[in-house]
């Protein structure tokens, strides 16, 4: 049995408190009027430096085009920035909430695949996966609340939720049958309800199988429910990615977006399994996990990173090639305003894992896997950032107090929930029929 150390409990609570305070500060710092935006930007420009220069240039641009018109014309730019800055803490909250939720969701899908494929290597890791998916409950509830607030236009994250915008937008009007607040919330409830139901029963069956010494009754139930879940999951995950991410840019669409988001959440989930396994092993638990298990997880990290890049490139190349204005604008915004995160993400999610995890021997060296894992997780946070921020914050983005605090808040919650869930059951799923094969797994 694992016991949660007081240091880890305290650490996660401190993270949550610091994150919450920072986030409240981030919301309090939002400018309330155009006047405040002007003061903020003036103060910011006075600092000089790289950022100040670009702002100064865009200010000059605004003056050149609007300067000779009345004062309201010049204020249009500031009003735009005002809306973006008012969105910023919300968007930061949303990115972090979704990122940690998608880790747990990726692990849930990986767990279901292990059962459906009757994998023999992984049952020693099942309790870790079950613990990570425990985050789906609080994470899902928080995400649902944020989605409900956004869907009913309490904040301005989704432009399609603003009736004023829809009234003047023919393209969104054509999509109202799908993109409306009520449907959005009902679908979110169905997705989350389905995933949480599977999680509840899969964990229950796995625990019951531990006590069942006579047969594999509960294991067979796990197998059936996992196969059914995977069918449900691949449809709902795809729709979830349209609703929760792609609809930030309601004019734009990509047919492989669901797969793209899936690759991102899958690799993040597998990486988290590897990191937590290595952490627990370093604390002296999990003596039945050998370095072949780590090797296999690292192979998945390597492979799914390349799969992610394949989908990223497939999406990018076709849109770049055809150069259709309403499609290519998605990438033009990202390349012009988000150059560093956009290309930095490719380095972190593709080139770094490719080089570090290519060698077979490196995949069983713990600190190599941890190093690659941390970079991959940061890279996929930036990936979500790149998907959400351009449509909500635009060129007014920067990694500030809201972004960092939101990550700390959800990291604290994630660690707290996951490691508390680890204490709830023995670390070895001893009833699983493949447990002996898994213990002796050797590559």
């Amino acid at each position, binding site marked *: 049995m694992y016991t949660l150390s007081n240091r880890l409990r305290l650490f996660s609570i401190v993270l949550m408190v610091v994150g919450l305070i920072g986030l409240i500060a981030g919301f309090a710092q939002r400018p309330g009027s155009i006047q405040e935006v002007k003061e903020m930007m003036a103060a910011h420009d006075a600092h000089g430096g790289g950022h100040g220069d670009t702002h100064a240039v865009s200010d000059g641009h605004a003056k050149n085009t609007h300067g000779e018109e009345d004062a309201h014309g010049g204020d249009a730019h500031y009003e735009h920035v005002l809306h973006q800055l008012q969105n910023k803490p919300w968007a930061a909250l949303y990115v972090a909430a979704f990122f940690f939720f998608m880790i747990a969701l990726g692990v849930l899908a990986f767990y279901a695949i292990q059962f459906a494929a009757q994998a023999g290597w992984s049952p020693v890791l099942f309790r870790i996966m079950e613990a990570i998916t425990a985050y789906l409950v609080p994470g899902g509830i928080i995400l649902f609340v944020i989605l409900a607030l956004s869907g009913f236009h309490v904040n301005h994250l989704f432009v399609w939720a603003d009736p004023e915008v829809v009234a003047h937008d023919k393209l969104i009007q054509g999509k109202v049958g799908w993109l409306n607040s009520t449907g959005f919330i009902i679908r979110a409830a169905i997705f989350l309800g389905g995933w949480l139901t599977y999680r509840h029963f899969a964990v229950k069956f796995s625990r019951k199988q531990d006590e069942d010494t006579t047969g594999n009754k509960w294991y067979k139930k796990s197998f059936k429910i996992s196969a059914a879940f995977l069918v449900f999951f691949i449809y709902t995950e795809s729709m979830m990615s349209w609703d929760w991410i792609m609809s930030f840019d309601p004019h734009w669409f990509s047919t492989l977006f669901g797969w793209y988001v899936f690759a991102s959440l899958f690799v993040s989930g597998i990486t988290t399994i590897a990191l937590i396994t290595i952490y627990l092993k370093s604390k002296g638990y999990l003596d039945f996990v050998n370095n072949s298990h780590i090797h296999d997880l690292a192979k998945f990290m390597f492979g799914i990173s390349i799969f992610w890049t394949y989908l990223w*490139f497939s999406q*990018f*190349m076709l849109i*770049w*090639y*055809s*150069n259709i204005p309403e499609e290519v604008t998605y990438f033009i915004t990202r390349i012009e305003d988000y150059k560093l995160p956009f290309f930095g993400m490719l380095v972190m999610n593709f080139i770094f894992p490719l080089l570090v995890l290519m060698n077979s021997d490196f995949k069983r060296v713990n600190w190599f896997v941890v190093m690659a894992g941390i970079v991959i997780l940061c890279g996929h946070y930036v990936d979500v950032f790149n998907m959400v921020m351009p449509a909500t914050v635009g060129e007014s983005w920067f990694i500030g107090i809201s972004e960092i605090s939101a990550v700390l808040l959800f990291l604290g919650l994630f660690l707290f929930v996951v490691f508390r869930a680890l204490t709830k059951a023995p670390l070895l799923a001893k009833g699983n029929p493949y447990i002996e094969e898994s213990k002796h797994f*050797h590559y």
Partner: protein
Amino acid sequence: MASKVIHALYIDDDILMDAVKKVRSEHYHIEEVYTPFPVHGLDKAMGLPHTRLAITAFMYGCVGLTVAITMMNFIMIEDWPQDIGGKPSFSYLENLPAFVPIMFELTVFFAAHLMVITFYMRSKLWPFKEAENPDVRTTDDHFLMEVDATNKNVDELTSLLSDTGAVEIKVIDKEEDNH
């Protein structure tokens, strides 16, 4: 030079793996193992050096990448400049995304095909080659371990092999190395 080998036949790959480890720990030299399918981990158990095929694969991949870049630069940019995707930049670098799939495919193509050919040559497998395996049953369901018995106590080795679960043991005198 006259040499003597023992052929021990097994019917299960797990028993074979344990036998290989046992025979090697007793300091006998295993010349070769003939199996009907690749047995995972057998190369490690036999103490064979790591394959250098990966190095050749890397070199072939580099050749493929170079061929792809040179070929497309000549065809699409120099010889008959193409307007790619409505972006008439006539520059290889600015049109790079369009070339990436071909660069990738040719890298894989060269690496895979040349690696297979290298593997066949290195394993002495070419057309009209006479089969070397000493017993036809190794192409069906038997595993054969060939142990060097020159200047060794044959009875001792035979009893060791039968202890490891061999179903059939044959002592073979070779007049000369005929392969």
